């Protein structure tokens, strides 16, 4: 088979972002052009993906497109995998994009500035998301994955004046960022371990991957990535928080597409990792808990956006559990996963309309609270009634009522739990949890319907002030509910007339393991003709849910304890970081120096521990070989020891000078006349310098000395270490073979005349030290006078001369910084 071209897919992925960027070039007034351009991006993606599929068909999961090299050294290139899973998600994402763009136009209305910012960000997101689902290289997936997090961050914090929006955006990015890094880490671990860097190879070699500890660790890390993105318990709190974003964003990113990236990733991983022993228990437990928790919390919400956010959490939990159960089919061949893409699509097709209609209600009614919807059906206005109708139709699908795809999707899940229970009886718990979650969804619908028709009032007070701005309808108002209507129509179309649905999906579904559903979705009545466990479960859920909906249970805000995780983590990191860091960074020079010196000795100690020969006293070192030298050494030591003893400052300087003069003596013993002369002059100038400076410095305070013993202990350890190192090196010098070439010998030999090594060129001087300084190592000397010049520039810069004093003092008064002692 000819490898498909990657460029077409690349353009498909890039089109929305490019179109979005292009809208930035338009002037604010060109609204319609802007809109058309922004819509053209996702439309192009849909078309191009369709063309690709038309040309190449749905690729098998192990056949990628060709590659475009990018960073060959890192083995990173651009290639795509347009298999069933990928193309389904790509079409879903691009298709939703097409719908959301005009909706956003209606939602933002006349706020041209918002639209100008919105379309580029949205296009960027669409591209990123398309990249996630189509990428073949694992790292390319990570790349786009992080880009979706970035765009989500920007969109959640959309409202610049709402400080809380910023915090929520931060929480979302921080949580998904954790996942992104875990995913990156997992992929790097896995790729480094197995050498597999592509999804296609992963599929091809799924059977041969060993299940050792590294692979399990990599899998867990990757799962963390998927779970945070798909808002799984216990890190789901960012998703309800993300509802701070404008409604088009909630509908698009936070219900239909981005949050499904985690589910998508699990779908990608299922063939390769499904057989891991950890797969089923990990996914199913996390997913089931999320599912139930989300449903219960959703039921008790008053704000519609938050309510639907929690149902999204719940459904994402269900999808994760679905793939978790699928592990049994990979590992044991039990039919535990059926029509997974249908189940995902079903969710998108009712959840997005729900959010879209919430946005419509915010503008039409001026509120997003359940209590404010009381009697909505009977209120005037065509738009209101249409919105109410779409709300109820979508709510019915949320409840999984018969006649929708959602109903059959739920049947499929129940069937999977049923099969899995047969293999692992403990999984019956999951079935029960699923029923409970479904019941909650039914109850939500019942309550919504009751409120909308005015049967009974909601929990809240209807007279509260609206929390959203009511907007007068304009010519675009119909776009507030029409996209939702179009989407929800698909639910019912698929549910009532499954033929078309089946034809579409049978080509791309990879996981069909149950013979009962092998031909596709059944007609709406068929489940009732062949009653079984799934139908029973559905009926129980519907019955219990209806009762629950009319009951008084679970009304009013149930506080989600997990909402505390984020603030606590944030504060914990800040406080802990502060404490840890500032336990070192105290601001006291003394502490710093103490640490530096301790580290120095510790490191030398460590080296000595590794190489105990260092501790053996070198042999053949005679301190008494030259008595005069010994005497000079004693003078140096005595002067040095006297230094901390004396306190009178002038005396101290003189003692310092004295120790310097004794050093001069030692240089003479070492036959270094140049050095001795330099040191002598240097010492004189330094004493003058010190005396000058001491008169300029404030008088010392005569407080008692600080902790003499520890200081002395540390100081002696440092001193002994350095002295010991000197001794060792000196020993190496003394024992160096006579003929061993050293730099010194070369300089000696070439100071005056050259040799063949230097092409006969010599230093032409007899004083070897001077020749070294100005010739052999003249570069050192050049650097050294540069240091001198720099130092004096620094001094002049800090202490400006007379002429500048006046200007200087003016400035000091100005800024109040002229504190004089």
């Amino acid at each position, binding site marked *: 088979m000819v490898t498909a071209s990657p460029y077409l897919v690349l353009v498909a992925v890039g089109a929305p972002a490019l179109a979005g960027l292009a809208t930035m070039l338009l002037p604010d007034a060109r609204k319609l052009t802007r809109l058309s351009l922004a819509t053209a991006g996702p439309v192009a993606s849909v078309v191009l993906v369709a063309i690709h599929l038309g040309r190449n068909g749905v690729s098998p999961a192990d056949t990628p497109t060709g590659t475009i090299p990018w960073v060959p050294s890192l083995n990173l290139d651009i290639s795509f995998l347009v298999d069933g899973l990928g193309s389904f998600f790509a079409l879903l994402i691009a298709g939703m994009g097409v719908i959301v763009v005009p909706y956003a136009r209606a939602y933002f209305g006349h706020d041209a500035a918002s639209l100008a910012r919105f379309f580029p960000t949205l296009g960027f997101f669409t591209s990123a998301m398309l990249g996630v689902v189509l990428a073949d290289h694992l790292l390319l997936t990570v790349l786009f994955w992080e880009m979706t997090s970035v765009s989500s961050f920007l969109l959640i914090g959309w409202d610049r004046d709402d400080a809380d929006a910023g915090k929520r955006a931060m929480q979302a990015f921080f949580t998904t960022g954790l996942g992104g890094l875990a995913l990156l880490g997992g992929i790097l671990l896995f790729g480094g371990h197995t050498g597999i860097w592509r999804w296609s190879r992963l599929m091809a070699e799924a059977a041969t991957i060993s299940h050792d500890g590294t692979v399990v660790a990599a899998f867990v890390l990757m799962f963390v990535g998927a779970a945070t993105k798909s808002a799984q318990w216990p890190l789901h709190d960012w998703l309800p928080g993300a509802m701070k974003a404008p409604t088009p964003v909630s509908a698009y990113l936070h219900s239909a597409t981005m949050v499904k990236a985690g589910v998508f990733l699990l779908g990608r991983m299922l063939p390769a990792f499904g057989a891991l022993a950890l797969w089923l228990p990990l996914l199913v437990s996390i997913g089931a808990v999320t599912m139930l928790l989300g449903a219960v919390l959703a039921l008790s919400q008053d704000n519609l956006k938050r309510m639907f956010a929690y149902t999204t959490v719940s459904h994402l939990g269900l999808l994760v559990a679905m793939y978790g159960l699928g592990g049994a089919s990979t590992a044991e061949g039990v039919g535990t996963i059926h029509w997974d893409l249908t189940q995902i699509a079903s969710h998108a097709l009712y959840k997005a309309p729900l959010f879209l209609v919430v946005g419509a209600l915010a503008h039409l009614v001026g509120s997003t609270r359940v209590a404010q919807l009381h009697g909505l059906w009977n209120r005037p206005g065509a738009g209101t009634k249409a919105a109410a109708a779409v709300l109820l139709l979508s709510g019915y699908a949320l409840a999984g009522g018969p006649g929708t795809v959602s109903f059959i999707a739920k049947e499929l899940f129940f069937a999977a739990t049923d099969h899995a229970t047969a293999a692992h009886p403990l999984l019956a718990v999951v079935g029960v949890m699923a029923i409970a979650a479904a019941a909650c969804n039914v109850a939500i619908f019942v309550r919504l319907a009751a409120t909308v028709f005015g049967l009974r009032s909601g929990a809240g007070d209807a007279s509260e002030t609206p929390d959203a701005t009511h907007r007068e309808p304009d010519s675009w108002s119909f776009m507030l509910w029409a996209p939702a209507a179009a989407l929800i129509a698909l639910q019912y179309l698929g549910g009532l007339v499954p033929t078309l649905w089946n034809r579409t999906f049978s080509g791309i579904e990879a996981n069909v393991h149950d013979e009962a559903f092998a031909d596709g979705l059944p007609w709406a009545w068929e489940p009732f003709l062949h009653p079984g466990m799934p139908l029973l479960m559905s009926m129980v859920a519907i019955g219990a849910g209806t009762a629950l909906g009319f009951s008084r249970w679970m009304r009013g805000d149930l506080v989600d304890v997990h909402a505390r995780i984020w603030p606590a983590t944030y504060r914990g990191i800040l406080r802990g970081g502060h404490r840890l860091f500032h336990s070192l960074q105290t601001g006291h020079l003394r502490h710093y120096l103490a640490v530096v010196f301790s580290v120095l000795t510790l490191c030398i100690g460590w080296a000595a521990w590794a190489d105990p020969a260092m501790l053996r006293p070198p042999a053949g070192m005679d301190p008494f070989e030259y008595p005069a030298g010994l005497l000079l050494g004693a003078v140096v030591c005595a002067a040095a020891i006297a230094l901390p003893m004396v306190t009178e400052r002038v005396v101290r300087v003189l003692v310092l000078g004295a120790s310097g003069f004794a050093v001069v003596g030692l240089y003479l013993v070492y036959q270094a006349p140049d050095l001795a002369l330099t040191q002598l002059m240097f010492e004189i100038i330094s004493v003058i310098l010190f005396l000058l400076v001491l008169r300029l410095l404030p008088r010392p305070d005569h407080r008692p000395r600080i902790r003499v013993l520890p200081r002395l202990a540390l100081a002696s350890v440092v001193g002994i270490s350095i002295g010991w190192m000197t001794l060792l090196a000196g020993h190496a010098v003394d024992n160096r073979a006579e003929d061993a070439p050293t730099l010194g010998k070369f300089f000696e030999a070439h100071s005056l005349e050259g040799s063949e090594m230097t092409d006969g060129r010599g230093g032409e*001087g007899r004083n070897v030290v001077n020749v070294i300084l100005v010739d052999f190592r003249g570069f050192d000397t050049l650097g050294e006078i540069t240091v001198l010049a720099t130092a004096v520039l620094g001094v*002049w810069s800090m202490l400006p001369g007379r002429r500048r004093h006046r200007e200087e003092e003016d400035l000091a008064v100005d800024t109040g910084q002229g504190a004089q002692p």
Partner: protein
Amino acid sequence: MRMSSLILQTAVRFILPLTFLYAAYAALKGHNGPGGGFIAGLIASVGFCTYRMSYGDRAFHRLLPVHPRWLVFVGLGLAGAVASLPLLFGQPLLRSASTTLHLGGSEVHLVSSMAFDLGLLLVVVGVAVGMISRLGEELDR
């Protein structure tokens, strides 16, 4: 700041020419015997500094009428120029060259590193004098 003791002043007036002489001697002899630009510079600096300490700012300005900045400038410039001149001839930095001049019968052997040494001298004097005199000015304020 001045240490205006008469004895000191007299002593310094006497010593100053000597230090300069010795500095010149050390500078010239440096390549073949103890000495060199550094040492000469330091010796001259000691002379300047003691003069500055005993006679004060104004007298010092008469002795050294330029800002020490220019000493550093010329010194570093000279050394840098000597160092980088070989680049023009396709040689690496600091490639030394020598020539022998015949001046009235006596031969003078000149090595390019001597100019380098002179640069060192000027920088050292400029820096030492620059620091000490600036600090001295501070005390005078």
